[in-house]
């Protein structure tokens, strides 16, 4: 009898499940506020933290830009344009810049977004505990509140990059009230003035956001709700898009064919991301520059792009893609694919019979790593692939001296170079600097953006960094989004992805 009841109950509940499931709401989107208005589900990388001052990953900026806004933002080409500030002006020699804020701005918790709040944020970013942007703001010696809507940043040297710098994570403003009450809490509960407000966050899973009606540009935000989900695994990315789990998701090149076949729109966008080899130049054998140069010569970048990346990229020897202001054409093919030269350099460096190195990768099935291994073995460099999770940790712990990585660019090219080659730069695993590079960088920094000398000065800095530091650049690669045909208004943003004007029908 017991068994009969048990079976019966099971059968009833099972049929109930089926009936209810069939009655479940049709679309696949899982908005926190329920169906109705337009919701976008974005499969992208969740931020490592929702506090812009302690984030150590460049990619975080895209997620953070949903909840936060800064004095400036980037336009389609990546140049700084007004956001919370409606204008700015430098003094004569570039050592101070004054921003004029829009009136009546508020954070999502009601705190006034005024000059005092800007001062608070800059000082927090510069001096706060655990900040990762202290290095970038160190040159701001003083922040003067002229009046509630006017704030002046006083710099210790001539630097015209500030508006660009503030267009990214460095300039994102958090509510002083929230930060004073619980600074550490911002890592999971952001309080900003961005286009959306976070309503729910499950780490490593998803973040639910809703439209912020008090956003300064709210009229351009058409989406009512926004769901940020972990980027899908490549094998189920297209399935996820088709079945409605995502409206828009980032896909690797291997899935382009599948996405197109499934009727999805595919957009490879030229952005600032570059695949790199992070190197700790203080650790043997990399402390001899000839070793990294040999490695660079041994790499066939074209084959790398073709074989491991389905042709979706361009060989690159510097941290910027072609066409960007910081891109120095003379660096192209700096270390040409030349196996004989590689072997010669190795012998010069004291390794005539080859070398054994460990290369850390974060993904076990990364084709790039395996192709590199093959290419390097052809010149006698035996590469052992180690699968760990360098990523954020390695920038701070620096325990892996050679790691396959990707640099996601920065809003300011000077900032990008600083992060890569500067003494405290996150991607400078050896944490040492080169005075020639520092000088060139300072010169670029002190050149106004509209000056005709700017591109040249910047490119000189790029060359100085690339030639003197061991970081090795492989190829620039596009951001590839696949999305359903009911998503409209997406634009190709070189820098931070933005959602003004985007609708889902």
């Amino acid at each position: 009898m017991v068994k009969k009841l048990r079976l019966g109950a099971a059968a009833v509940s099972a049929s109930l499940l089926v009936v209810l499931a069939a009655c479940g709401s049709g679309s696949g989107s899982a908005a926190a506020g329920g169906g109705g208005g337009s919701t976008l589900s974005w499969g992208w990388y969740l931020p490592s933290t929702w506090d812009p001052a302690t984030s150590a990953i460049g990619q975080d900026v895209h997620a953070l830009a949903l909840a936060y806004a800064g004095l400036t933002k980037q336009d389609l080409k990546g140049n700084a344009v007004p956001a919370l500030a409606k204008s700015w002006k430098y003094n004569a020699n570039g050592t101070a810049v004054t921003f004029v804020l829009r009136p009546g701005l508020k954070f999502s918790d009601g705190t006034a977004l005024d000059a005092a709040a800007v001062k608070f944020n800059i000082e927090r970013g510069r001096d706060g505990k655990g900040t990762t942007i202290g290095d970038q703001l160190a040159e701001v010696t003083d922040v003067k509140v002229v009046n509630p809507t006017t704030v002046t940043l006083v710099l210790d040297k001539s630097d015209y990059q500030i508006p660009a710098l503030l267009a990214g994570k460095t300039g994102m403003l958090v509510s002083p009230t929230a930060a004073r009450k619980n600074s550490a809490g911002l890592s999971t509960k952001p309080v900003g003035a961005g286009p959306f407000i976070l309503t729910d966050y499950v780490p490593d899973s998803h973040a639910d956001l809703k439209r912020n009606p008090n956003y300064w540009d709210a009229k351009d935000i058409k989406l009512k709700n926004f769901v940020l989900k972990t980027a899908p695994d490549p094998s189920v990315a297209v399935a996820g898009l088709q079945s409605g789990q995502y409206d828009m998701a980032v896909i690797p090149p291997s899935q382009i064919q599948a996405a197109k076949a499934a009727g999805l729109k595919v957009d490879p966008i030229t952005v600032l991301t570059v695949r790199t080899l992070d190197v700790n130049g203080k650790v043997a054998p990399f402390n001899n520059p000839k070793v990294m140069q040999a490695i660079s010569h041994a790499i066939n970048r074209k084959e790398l792009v073709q074989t491991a990346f389905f042709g979706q990229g361009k060989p690159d020897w510097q941290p910027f893609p072609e066409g960007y202001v910081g891109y120095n054409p003379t660096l192209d093919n700096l270390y040409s694919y030349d196996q004989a030269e590689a072997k010669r350099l190795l012998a010069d460096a004291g390794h005539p019979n080859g070398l054994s190195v460990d290369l850390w990768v974060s993904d076990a099935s990364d084709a790039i790593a395996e192709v590199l291994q093959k290419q390097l073995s052809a010149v006698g460099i035996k590469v052992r692939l180690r699968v760990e999770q360098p990523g954020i940790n390695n920038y701070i712990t620096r325990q892996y001296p050679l790691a396959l990585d990707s640099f996601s660019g920065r809003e300011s090219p000077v900032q990008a170079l600083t992060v890569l080659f500067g003494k405290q730069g996150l991607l400078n695993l050896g944490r040492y600097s080169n005075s020639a590079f520092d000088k060139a960088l300072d010169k670029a920094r002190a050149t106004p953006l509209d000056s005709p000398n700017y591109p040249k000065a910047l490119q000189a800095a790029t060359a100085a960094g690339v030639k003197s530091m061991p970081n090795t650049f492989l190829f620039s690669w596009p951001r590839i989004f696949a999305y359903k045909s009911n998503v409209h208004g997406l634009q190709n943003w070189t820098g931070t992805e933005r959602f003004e004007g985007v609708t889902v029908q």
Partner: protein
Amino acid sequence: MSTFRRAWQLRPAKISVVILAAIVVLVAFGHLLAPMDPLQQHDGQILKGPSAHFWLGTDYLGRDVLSRLIYGSTLSVLTALEAVGIAFGLGVLPGLASVYLGRPFEWVSQRVMDGLMALPFIIFAIAVAALLGNGLHQAMFAVGVLMAPGFFRITRAAAWSFNRAQYVEAAQLLGASPWRIIRKHIWNKVLPTVAIATANHIAGALLIVSSLTFLGIGVVPPTPTWGGLLASDLNYLAQQRWAPVAPALLIMITVGALNVFADAIRDSSDDGALKDATKRRRLGESRNVATAR
């Protein structure tokens, strides 16, 4: 021993043994049988289908799939055997001993095994592999330890039911030591049960190895493993719809052969205990003691 002889008569057993023998050959002599170097990336041959040159086609870097499959078998099977070996050592001997060495040892060993059984398989294996070094060996060591209770209980139950046989009592009365009793009287009777458990556990361990390498644990690229092959195959499903079939089939056939083999032994056992459904429940474990999702 007559059990095994009888098992061999059955046709399913013959087929499964033949399959298993083929796997063993593959594992032992794979490097001689593989047509090509599994690591060699052939230019311009990316994701090609089966052809005269590449019997199972090529993978995302132009490597011969058949060769990778053969080489991958070695690592996958050997690590699975490693785990079962550890489980066998840690489980069978204490299992037998717990029946004869008195109540304190029995109680302690039972509680330790119970404690181990409460730990979730795959999560624990991942935790061990990740926290103690990302090696497949660490992970399979953990799996072996967690499988030990299964062997323990099966051996113990089998030994227990024979313990009460009259000839054992007689031997004890005559003053034979526990070890002698085990060696002379019990072992042969317990062997079929243990053999069944071993076969089932190897099957389970193979599935676990595949799952772990699928998740990326313990995979050292470019070394091929069954699970690792499946994982990368899934990334390129659009280009090669049928790629996952080969490694999946290989896993399934091996596991299936082991299960059939175990069943054959069970069905031809002359011990009524094995056939009786009630006793089978008391013995506790069916074949899937070690598999995990």
